[in-house]
């Protein structure tokens, strides 16, 4: 079954650099902060499973990584 499309462009516009907490239905920004610890402190009272975390930057770019 095809998953429902998700668009985060509006709620992440102007957010970052840092980390963001987004509602698990991807509909609203719950918290933002300069680092992961800060954001996790802000959402410590939020029910488990109701948010997802994400590193954010002002301009999202393509990434390719390799390692030896």
């Amino acid at each position, binding site marked *: 079954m095809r998953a429902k499309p998700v*668009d985060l462009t509006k709620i992440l516009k102007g957010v970052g650099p840092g980390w963001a907490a987004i509602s698990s239905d991807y509909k609203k920004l719950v918290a933002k902060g300069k*680092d*992961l610890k800060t954001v996790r402190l802000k959402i410590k009272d939020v029910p488990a499973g109701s948010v*997802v975390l994400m590193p954010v*930057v002002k301009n*999202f*770019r393509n990434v390719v*990584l390799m*390692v030896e």
Partner: protein
Amino acid sequence: MNFPYIKLPGLTRRPVVPVVFTHKQTAIEPVMCVVDSGADMSYFDLDLASELGLTVKELKRIDSWDITGHIFWGCLSDVNVVIGGHEFKIPAIFSDQITRPFCVLGQEGLFDQARITFERYKWNIDIRPRTDLN
């Protein structure tokens, strides 16, 4: 499990999926990670290691190179990730040297244990454990 590609500011839709990280008795909220078949390894923010309770000083340091040839270092550790309710143990590099918008799920480990189907034409990615493994 099927996940939608996610549209982010200034970029086309990407295969970004929620991943729960666990280490010993610690689990943190799901972190959105891009599934990157072009990355040999998985790369995560060094902050994530600290939040998981990993002792960064005790981890093996390893060098990586980005596509421009720029070298950066990170700390290598196995980590448990839960994707769509399925748990996988994968090697990961934690680094504060990466200027990137994503946590990256690369090939090593995950692509060995899971069947991953990119269906960009439907903006869908399907990740599920291999059924031919015990």
